[in-house]
């Protein structure tokens, strides 16, 4: 190893207590200081442009092993510095290294300040993930992203999901819904599997941790386990984007790897940080159509000519006068902006504190956090409170504790102990695609049915005019709660018997425990409207998971001559994951006040258990030539308990190369000041489901005794699906590294892809069975640009932009039929079809070029649709009509492809639902923004995220527009419906309205997808923050080191550039989820979610 390399290695990786251990490994034994005359070095490190003090700068004296990190005030202190002249170095990721020559006299305290220049390129950054040992990024042929948490300290983020959103091209954090506590689904470079969960695997300080959603008994509002990790405790996050980088992680790593490193202590006096955040939360309602209706829809006859119709109209008019103060005439449209009544301004508060410090042999970092949020959903504000019932709310409360201890008993051994504990209480109202959803019932109100609010307990009150299932007031008395705890603990032991050889062992346990309850109390149907379990019901589920990690690895560094450095890495890993579920459900309490399963009249129980064991070994060799050419070869073997009996182990190879000509060649260009090329190819895999190999029968308790029935078809030949990915890329630093550009092209093929194949359902086993028959290819380009646009006294403007292009295609389903997300439910239109993007939308589409696209005549004798002439259509509409009496004519398509041009409808033609309608993943996605420092103490940060070339399904809007029973309540639907039903309309007016109905309004089964899937390209103003750092002379007077005030906002505004009709295209009918085809591919389908709210946050942080 060259001395330059060694110095850089220390700069990024060696933090706090790691310094001595790694220094020992590299042969830098501290000198016996007691025998020398020494002095002290102190100083402050600042950003050269903004003069902002810089925290966590590595300041060290080259070749001595003496070093320290700056604190939050940018200050450092080096004790016991031998008297004499020294080269003092300051290094921080994102900055050019600072060098200074200082002379320290015996007993002197010398001041050495640094002003560091920002750099836009970070090739010397040290990473661990995927490389096995601490390695500079420039040596790796694969791309790896690093998020430095310090750079996000002032961003308006409250959890990990928000922390990684929009930071890296190709890494997508899908927010899913606006409910409080909802976690985000994370996707890296799209989908690497057709059947297995496409979430990356997560490591914290070297151990695998649970990446599940916390199931809150609903489609939406499910927290993510990743948000158990307090952002304040995170030092950095490393992200491997695909198989070429994640090969050493083997099976399960196809979707990438995220490794979180928590903060560690630094030797020195105790340092404390305390922070408070207070947020107001508001739901944007600007894209929610008002509720509209017309009187006359309830007539016995379409044209209100029945005997009792006049009385019906009069009765409704009277009720509307009482409820809304209006009295519209028959067939007259009227509107009311009811839906926003479900919201008020939510409030959240977070308090966190940490302490760190220690000696040279022992360092500690401990932190605690308390967060509570009462979201904006507040339906009960509109109703008189029932003292016997509790109204649902969207609430989330988390308390967490982390600790990190580093013990260095001698120069050869280092021990690290990390713990994380999180406790959460969460509540969310019934939501999602759910007829008893509280917010969904607000969207499905019908003005003409609304009554004044009766007194509490007055049956028959229907304040929001709910047409079916339950009233909004009843729905809000359903409770969904989760109490959850999460512990992760790990121990790492490092042993460095010689300068070149190193052994590390990491052992850890991740444990989670959730207790989820869905509860309808006795007599929850307070309006006497709902007939569903009026005596209540209860569903209880206890879910426990354990993930055990054992990871042992060794490395050996050797030199061959002056120019070649060789690093060999080898190791073995074992993972054991075990999940247990148990619970029960039932209905009918004998009376009020009972809340246990045992009080139910009808109940059943369940229990299940799964375990997956993975054992693997790996080896890797990296050769560095002249410190600018690096070649890496490696591979991993894996065995897994989920593989079929006919399959044993799998081997995943990799090779990569990195060339840094700007370092190795005689390079003097200021324009291209740094240049690197890299390339990598590698494999990783995904395992089958835990028990997918077994043919099994499940318990089927009959009325005549216990029984069994077919469950899993089983496949003994199951093996992992294998992702083979290659990527090439280049990074360039421009204008003396003030600007940088990073571009990567990647190409992935997933072979032996596991397809959840549906076999003939009359063959006994109706569940889909995993079969290794598919192939999925993907390719993409990731480009990021960042740099300093303005740098002058008192003003620095840094800008960034990134984009990721993604193209994915299912190239082979192995003869299996197309698969559909969402089971047989026809309104979800995401399919897996050969030749198309996974999850592509297929559905029916009105024949746009047909003047009268209406199916109002009987089919022709050959079964084809009879297209009406204008005369026939006018004759048909010569009398009032209901939209329920006819259907649009759609493009026929018999084979999941482009329209054939044949007319089809629900009773003629074919291929009604098979027309390609778009894809739910964007062509381009990314972010841009800027960071501006001004007036020395102010900093302004922005982040915008965008998606381009994406289609979304507005499912809840389709219901609102088209459903005959619980919909047709948008202004346009009411207008067209009234025109068609009105006896005063002309035939032409009715026909025109019917054509508009076909082209704009009609949807849902059997015309699923029609008038519901639109271009949803968007830009979202994701983050805005303004930070004020209180001048140091002020805060020192208060006994503090630093003080920061921050105002921030999230999701300030959204610009939708397509013709999308929904409330918020970033929400999804399935929120954070855990497994299954729908979790992967039921994407970009908006369904009754609260729009993602705006958050306005005031924060203050002090250190002392």
């Amino acid at each position, binding site marked *: 190893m060259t001395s330059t390399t060694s110095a850089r290695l220390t700069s990024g990786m060696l933090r706090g207590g790691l310094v001595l251990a790694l220094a020992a490994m590299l042969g830098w034994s501290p000198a016996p200081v007691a025998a020398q005359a020494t002095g002290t070095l102190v100083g402050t490190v600042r950003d050269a442009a903004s003069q902002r003090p810089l925290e966590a700068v590595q300041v060290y004296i080259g070749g001595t092993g003496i070093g320290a990190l700056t604190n939050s005030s940018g200050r450092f202190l080096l004790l016991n510095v031998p008297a004499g002249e020294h080269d003092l170095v300051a290094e921080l990721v994102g900055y050019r290294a600072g060098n200074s020559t200082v002379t320290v006299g015996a007993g002197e305290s010398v001041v050495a300040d640094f002003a560091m220049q920002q750099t836009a390129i970070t090739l010397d950054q040290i990473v661990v993930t995927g490389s096995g040992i601490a390695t500079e990024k420039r040596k790796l042929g694969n791309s790896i992203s690093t998020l430095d948490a310090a750079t996000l300290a002032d961003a308006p983020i409250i959890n990990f999901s928000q922390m990684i959103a929009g930071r890296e091209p190709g890494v997508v954090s899908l927010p899913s819904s606006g409910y409080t506590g909802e976690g985000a689904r994370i996707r890296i470079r799209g989908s690497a599997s057709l059947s297995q969960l496409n979430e990356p695997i997560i490591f914290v300080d070297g151990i695998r941790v649970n990446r599940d959603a916390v199931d809150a008994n609903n489609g939406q509002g499910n927290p993510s386990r990743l948000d158990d990790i307090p952002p304040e405790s995170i030092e950095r996050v490393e992200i491997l984007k695909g198989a070429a980088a994640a090969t050493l992680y083997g099976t399960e790593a196809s979707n990438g790897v995220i490794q979180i490193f928590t903060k560690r202590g630094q030797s020195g006096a105790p340092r404390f940080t305390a922070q408070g955040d207070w947020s107001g939360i508001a739901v944007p309602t600007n894209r929610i159509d008002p509720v509209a209706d017309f009187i006359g829809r309830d007539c016995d006859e379409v044209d209100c000519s029945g005997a009792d119709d006049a009385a019906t109209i009069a009765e409704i008019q009277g009720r509307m006068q009482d409820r809304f103060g209006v009295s519209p005439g028959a067939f007259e449209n009227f509107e009311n902006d009811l839906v926003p009544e479900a919201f008020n301004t939510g409030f959240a508060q977070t308090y966190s504190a940490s302490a760190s410090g220690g000696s040279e042999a022992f360092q500690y970092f401990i932190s605690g956090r308390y967060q509570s949020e009462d979201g904006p959903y507040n339906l009960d504000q509109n109703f008189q409170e029932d003292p016997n019932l509790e109204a649902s709310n969207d609430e989330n409360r988390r308390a967490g504790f982390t600790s990190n201890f580093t013990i260095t008993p001698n120069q050869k051994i280092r021990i690290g102990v990390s713990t994380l504990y999180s406790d959460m209480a969460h509540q969310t109202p019934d939501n999602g695609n759910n007829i008893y959803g509280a917010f969904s019932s607000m969207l499905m109100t019908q003005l003409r049915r609304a009554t004044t609010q009766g007194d509490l307990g007055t049956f028959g009150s229907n304040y929001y005019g709910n047409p079916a299932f339950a009233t909004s007031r009843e729905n809000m008395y359903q409770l969904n709660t989760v109490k959850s705890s999460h512990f992760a603990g790990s121990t790492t032991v490092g042993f460095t018997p010689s300068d070149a050889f190193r052994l590390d062992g990491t052992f850890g346990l991740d444990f989670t425990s959730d207790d989820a309850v869905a509860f309808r109390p006795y007599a929850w149907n307070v309006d006497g409207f709902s007939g569903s379990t009026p005596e209540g019901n209860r569903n209880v589920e206890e879910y426990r998971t354990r993930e055990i990690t054992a990871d042992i690895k060794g490395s050996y560094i050797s030199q061959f001559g002056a120019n070649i450095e060789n690093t060999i890495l080898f190791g073995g890993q074992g993972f054991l994951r075990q999940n247990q579920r148990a619970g029960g459900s039932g209905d009918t309490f004998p009376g009020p006040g009972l809340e246990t399963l045992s009080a139910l009249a009808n109940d059943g129980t369940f229990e299940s258990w*799964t375990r997956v064991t993975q054992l693997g070994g790996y080896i890797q060799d990296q050769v560095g030539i002249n410190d600018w050419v690096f070649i890496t070869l490696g591979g991993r073997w894996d065995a897994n308990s989920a593989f079929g009996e006919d399959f044993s182990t799998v081997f995943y190879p990799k090779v990569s190369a990195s060339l840094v000509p700007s370092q190795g060649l005689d390079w003097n260009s200021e324009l291209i000041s740094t240049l690197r090329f890299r390339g990598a190819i590698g494999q990783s895999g995904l395992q089958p489901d835990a028990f997918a190999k077994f043919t099994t029968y499940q318990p089927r308790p009959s009325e005549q005794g216990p*029984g069994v*029935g077919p469950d899993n078809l089983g496949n003994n030949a199951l093996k992992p699906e294998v992702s083979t990915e290659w990527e090439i890329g280049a990074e360039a630093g421009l204008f003396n590294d003030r600007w940088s550009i990073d571009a990567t092209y990647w190409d992935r093929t997933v072979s032996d892809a596991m397809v959840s194949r549906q076999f003939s*359902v009359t*063959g*006994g086993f109706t569940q889909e069975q995993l079969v290794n028959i598919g192939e999925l290819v993907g390719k993409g380009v990731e480009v990021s640009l960042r740099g300093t646009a303005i740098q002058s006294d008192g003003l620095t403007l840094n800008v960034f932009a990134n984009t990721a292009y993604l193209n994915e295609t299912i190239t082979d389903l192995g003869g299996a039929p197309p698969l559909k997300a969402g089971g047989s439910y026809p309104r979800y239109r995401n399919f897996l079809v050969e030749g198309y993007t996974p999850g592509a939308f297929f559905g029916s589409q009105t024949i746009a070029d047909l003047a009268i696209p209406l199916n109002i005549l009987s089919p022709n004798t050959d079964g084809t649709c009879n297209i009406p002439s204008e005369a026939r259509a006018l004759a048909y509409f010569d009398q009032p009509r209901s939209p329920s009496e006819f259907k649009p004519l759609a493009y026929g398509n018999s084979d999941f492809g482009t329209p054939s041009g044949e007319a089809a409808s629900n009773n003629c033609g074919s291929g009604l639902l098979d027309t390609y309608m778009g894809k739910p993943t964007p062509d381009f996605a990314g972010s841009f923004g800027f960071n501006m420092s001004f007036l020395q103490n102010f900093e302004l940060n922005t982040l915008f995220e965008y998606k381009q070339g994406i289609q979304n399904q507005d499912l809840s809007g389709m219901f609102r527009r088209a459903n005959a029973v619980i919909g047709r309540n948008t202004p346009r639907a009411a207008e067209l419906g009234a025109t068609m039903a009105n006896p005063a309309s002309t035939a032409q007016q009715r026909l025109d309205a019917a054509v508009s109905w076909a082209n704009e309004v009609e949807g849902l089964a*059997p015309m699923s997808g029609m008038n519901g899937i639109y271009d949803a390209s968007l830009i979202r103003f994701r983050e805005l923050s303004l930070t004020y750092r209180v001048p140091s002379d002020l805060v020192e007077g208060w006994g503090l080191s630093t003080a920061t005030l921050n105002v921030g906002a999230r999701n300030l505004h959204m610009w939708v550039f397509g013709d999308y009709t929904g409330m918020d295209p970033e929400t999804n009918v399935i929120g954070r989820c855990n497994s299954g085809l729908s979790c992967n591919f039921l994407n970009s389908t908006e369904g009754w979610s609260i729009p993602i709210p705006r958050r306005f946050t005031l924060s203050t942080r002090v250190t002392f």
Partner: protein
Amino acid sequence: MINRIKAPAAAVAGMLVLSGCSGLLDVDNPNNLVEEAVRQEAAANGVVNGALWHVSEAFGSVIEAPAVVSDELYWIGSRDAWGALDQGFISDPANEFTDANFPNLGQAVWMSQNAVEVLAGHLANSADPDNFRVDYGRALMFRGLALMTTAEQQSDMTFSYKTVDGPPVSSGSAVLGQEGFEIPMPNMGAVMDAAIASFTEAIGVFVAEGETDLELDATALRMRAGMSRQIMDARGTVGTAIAYNAAVIGDANTVLADGGGDYRYNLSYSAASTDCNMCGNVNNRKENQIDLSLVTVDASNDVDGINLQDPIGGGDDLALIAMLNQWKGGSYTDSGNQYNDLTVSSARLAHLILAEAAAAGVAGVGTFADNINNLRAIDGYTTDYTTEDVVATLQHHRRVNTVLQGLRLSDMYRWGLEPETTAGTDPAAVWAPASDAFLRRGSMLPVTLIEVRANCYLNGLPCAGG
């Protein structure tokens, strides 16, 4: 499990971990039984009970769509695929509900046939075959019930085995079962014939074993199957009364003689056993409701009264009340109970068969009036049938005494009846002129999309091995 670890020497460290811990990779599944366990003698009773579970689930789900097409149920909920059925579009293979229920029926047929085969194996191979005779009879009865439901409710069907697709009945070459147990099913009539044969074999077992209650149940089911076999042939035409054959009449007389009174063969449901989809949809979710030609509802669409009157003495129809009380698990105006008994066959049906046969001129079955009045006596009617219209009387009494038993749509077909618009119902709740029910009388449920896409005989993809 790890039998071929071929790691190069350079990976010794990793491989040592692998080979030393191979036992960790043998993870059993404690949640479910594996195939070998199911075929053990000790599991025989569980296999047959499992067949009952699947047959019950299938019956409680499959008959709902035809009930919505008919005038027994109408759509009041949010999912408009029920609305399409309400309008008579019964043959749409993509209808989400028929598509969701089809696997239940397929699994019921497969599991009951599997139970027959497993039990037959025990009878042939066990050292103590007597232990399995009654369960074998039960398996035969449940297979008959699955096949009868298939023949009654489906226009077509497939019979596959695990990953081996089977051709549709309409192809003329469908076969149920594995080698040694194969039953040719060249048409839907043959499916019903197989059901009848299965019941007959079951009755033989029960007679031999002295299981009189089971014998009665199997006879009642065979009676219904025989009746439906003849109604199947009459669906496409408009007729009056069917002259049931001697076997059906014999079974009806046996049911009345041995069961008598208000005997019913019911399938039962509970939270701890089998779910009744139709019961949940109507009584709990209120996606569909009892048709307004039968009942009245309040503003919340809950049943609050009887609409259909007794055509002879007037007043709310007592038979309808009796059957709906069972349907609601108490009183027909109660809040819903989603776990009710569903009647499959009954003494009421025996009376109706005999009455219809009498109306059709079959000798030796008594008069139409006597049979109808015997039926009415079950509900305590004091006003007897005398001279009212025979066919209308038969139609009414079949309707109220077999409500929600999967028989009404076939009756409507064979008598040329259509749903009527009732005050308050959506005009779209009657059969559309272009609907299958209207245009192609006799249309029943199709082989649905999930099977069409998966089965090589239907999706156009090559079948394995050919």
